[in-house]
């Protein structure tokens, strides 16, 4: 469904993405792991053209795009088929939960308000936030804000949702409610690419795990193989550091 090939990105002298290839099939849930600074966020942003890659090819539903030379129109079309969930939610602060979800539908897609609100309430129900539809972001906890962020993403009916560390900004006791929403989406067959540090979640929910280090994909595989017998040395170190942390 979505494939990217040989994606390159540098910031000044710093090579952040160094030849990334990634294939996403329908109903895939791909978790991307990797140390901080390895380029995970940049990769997701390039896939949505929030950051322009220096080079790379994207094939989306059979259509090929040059990731460096792409028209505004094509970017808009690709964004229509994708959604993004941000680490720090990025909710519209002057809009209620429901308005956050309907804004894009009404303003960008010119959907009648009533229809947008029906879809919006459905999306909020899905993430367990229907009763707070009238709350402003500052009246919601981090976990609730992120659930609204997810509702905003699913409301546009995307083919794939990109998550950038959706729980990293949350207090530990709020992580669970967000992860269980994402698990629900996985059950429904939503296609997702998720950057995360939640190892148990990645293991349970993903169809494929990818490990990135210094701008490269150094290991990928199905979650059981990946977590029980990682082949790459850096992957082993990384997973061990997490195990040690959990065992305290």
């Amino acid at each position: 469904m979505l494939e990217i090939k040989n994606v390159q990105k540098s910031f000044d002298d710093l090579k952040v993405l160094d030849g990334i290839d990634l294939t996403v099939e329908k109903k895939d849930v791909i978790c991307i792991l990797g140390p901080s600074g390895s380029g995970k966020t940049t990769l997701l942003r390039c896939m949505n053209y929030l950051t322009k890659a220096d080079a790379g090819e994207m094939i989306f539903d059979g259509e090929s795009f040059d990731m460096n030379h792409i028209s505004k129109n094509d970017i808009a079309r690709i964004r229509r088929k994708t959604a993004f969930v941000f680490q720090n939610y990025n909710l519209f602060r002057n809009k209620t939960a429901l308005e956050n979800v309907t804004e894009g539908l009404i303003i960008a897609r010119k959907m009648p308000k009533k229809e947008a609100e029906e879809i919006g309430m459905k999306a909020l129900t899905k993430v367990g936030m229907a009763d707070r539809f009238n709350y402003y972001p500052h009246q919601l906890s981090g976990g609730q804000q992120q659930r609204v962020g997810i509702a905003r993403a699913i409301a546009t009916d995307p083919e794939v949702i990109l998550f950038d560390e959706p729980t990293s900004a949350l207090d530990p006791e709020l992580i669970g409610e967000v992860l269980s929403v994402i698990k629900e989406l996985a059950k429904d067959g939503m296609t997702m690419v998720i950057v995360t540090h939640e190892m148990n979640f990645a293991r349970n929910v993903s169809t494929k795990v990818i490990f990135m280090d210094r701008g490269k994909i150094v290991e990928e595989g199905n979650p059981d193989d990946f977590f029980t017998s990682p082949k790459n040395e850096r992957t082993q170190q990384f997973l061990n550091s997490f195990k040690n942390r959990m065992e305290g």
Partner: protein
Amino acid sequence: MNERLMDILISSFGEIFMQGIKITIPLTIISFTLGLILALFTAIVQVANIRILKSLARFYVWIIRGTPLIVQLFVIFYGLPSLGIILDAFPAAILVFSINTGAYASETIRAAIESVPKGQLEAGYCVGMSYVQTMRRIILPQALKTAFPPLSNSLIGLVKDTSLAASITITEMFQVSQRIAARTYETFALYCEVALIYLIFCTVLTKLQTICEKKLQIE
């Protein structure tokens, strides 16, 4: 206080106050409104990084903020005629006060826009909205809320600055009080009186500001 002085103060109060209603208030409101429109435009071309307009905007703000208001009034009213451009005093004052307000307020608005977290713009893009749509619906409403208190200060400042229009022959409140002072020799009393009238106008505005801020807060 003797009776003569009382009479002078009472009759001049009405005269000065009415001149405030007739000149100072319209001068302030028209200049401030035009100034705000100019400021919004000046701020947005800078934030949106529109190349030539951005340089132009920076140049404009630099000139206006770097020169005294009274000198700007003199350049436009007394200076331009020697280039063959003659403006009446009132339009000249409106022009200068608008341009002046525009420059200062644009910096206020620009800072307010920049204080809105940029992630919301990206979130707008991700749900398919354009730059203009996201600016108009998401970023600017938040920025204007932030800019409201400092802009109110500018408005109050402008009420007082309009007294400088006296220097280009406009009979606003200050000039009226000068005339009465010259005629009656009651300089101290008259200038204190006009100060009091400015204070009344500004106090009313401050109260209005507080009420509006409360309203904005609730929203």
